[in-house]
């Protein structure tokens, strides 16, 4: 079986429908 020296384990979810129009600093950015 496993015997793992875990530092971090994660389920990393992205809820795209709740995002503002553009991730970065573009003209569509909502700050």
């Amino acid at each position, binding site marked *: *079986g496993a015997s793992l020296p875990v530092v971090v384990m994660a389920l990393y*979810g992205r809820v*795209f429908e709740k995002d503002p129009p553009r991730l970065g600093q573009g*003209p569509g950015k909502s700050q």
Partner: protein
Amino acid sequence: LDTFIAAVYEHAVILPNSTETPVSKGDAVRLMNKNIDVLEKAVKLAAKQGAHIIVTPEDGIYGWVFTRETIYPYLEDIPDPKVNWIPCRDPQRFGHAPVQERLSCLAKDNSIYIVANIGDKKPCNASDPQCPADGRYQYNTNVVFDSEGKLVARYHKYNLFAPEIQFDFPKDSEVVTFETPFGKFGIFTCFDIFSHDPAVVVVDDFQVDSVLYPVAWYNTLPLLSAVPFQSAWARAMRVNLLAANTHNTSMHMTGSGIYAPEAVKVYHYDMETESGQLMLSELKSQPRREPTYPAAVDWSAYARSAKPFSSGQSDFPGMIYFDEFTFTELKENTGNYTVCQKDLCCHLTYKMSEKRKDEVYALGAFNGLHTVEGQYYLQICTLLKCQTTDLKTCGEPVGSAFTKFEEFSLSGTFGTSYVFPQIVLSGSQLAPERYYKVSRDGRLRSQS
């Protein structure tokens, strides 16, 4: 072709001296040729080993230390691939384009597809209300040359990273795909992977088999390191991902790999040397058609049916990269815990080989808008080692662990079907697939 040989090259970019004013075009081309000289060795080595395609990193030809003005001499006019152009044959057709000519000849002379990241420039004028004051658009651009040296793809990075002030945003998100004898490819760049457009669209709507992914990614522990994050994305999106990163240990830039939906094929993580690294692996051209193609996962099925565990102990807050998590401490060597933040509840069942006094672990939940280097909505369940035995350090970067987990099962009541599962072991190593699995009801669990 049922299978093909993929190559990615982690490149230690030769950076230009930082200057206040733009260098001459000749100096710019000399610096870019120094980098292409290094890439040429990797291309030749990959081709000799039968590679069909090689991916090189974002900013791999001129680096990232620029202002809007000082990058100008490094830019070329990159036409739409529809013009059907082989720069190696007809280099002056769209003006002076020494970099595109050299990359095209490299691809043609070695009969290999080459993916590179360079700068595109497009003139504009006052008739275009969004035209910048200096009369041109400057784009962070991926280019692909096929094995005859033809320009077959051009992608303008849509989600620029905050420090990339030398580039403009494309007006709209482009979805760039192209067919090859070894499957259908999509392409995007670095920070795009956090986006729906184009990263999810190119997979879900355009049904590509493989994604080409130049990055200049600096690792941010615990949750934003290149190899764990990108291999998790490939697993969850169920496509091949060919990720080539820059190599610069002072900026914690390392971590490249070739990832298939069912398993990590090869990866490289090196914080010890300043060397580049070539990786090759065989991949299925169309993973969807393979018996190894992973089944779809309902990420909240198990957690929604599970009764929350009540440990009676109080939760506590902690920051991970500017996001405020809700944590609960794992006090025993085995146990069941639930921690919630708004409507996200995370469940954990685990068994350690022994509960060490000098190492503390916590289960954390985050459900909200991340706002630091961009704005995107996250739901995260995480089990992590705290930096010290002080609970205030839960969420701080940690590189090593002695505590061994013999069993674990992590799940969450996610409100999204896009969940990326990662496990990072001591020394930033990935857990081999034989030790864990993702069950169809959404549990990331040990394979006992």
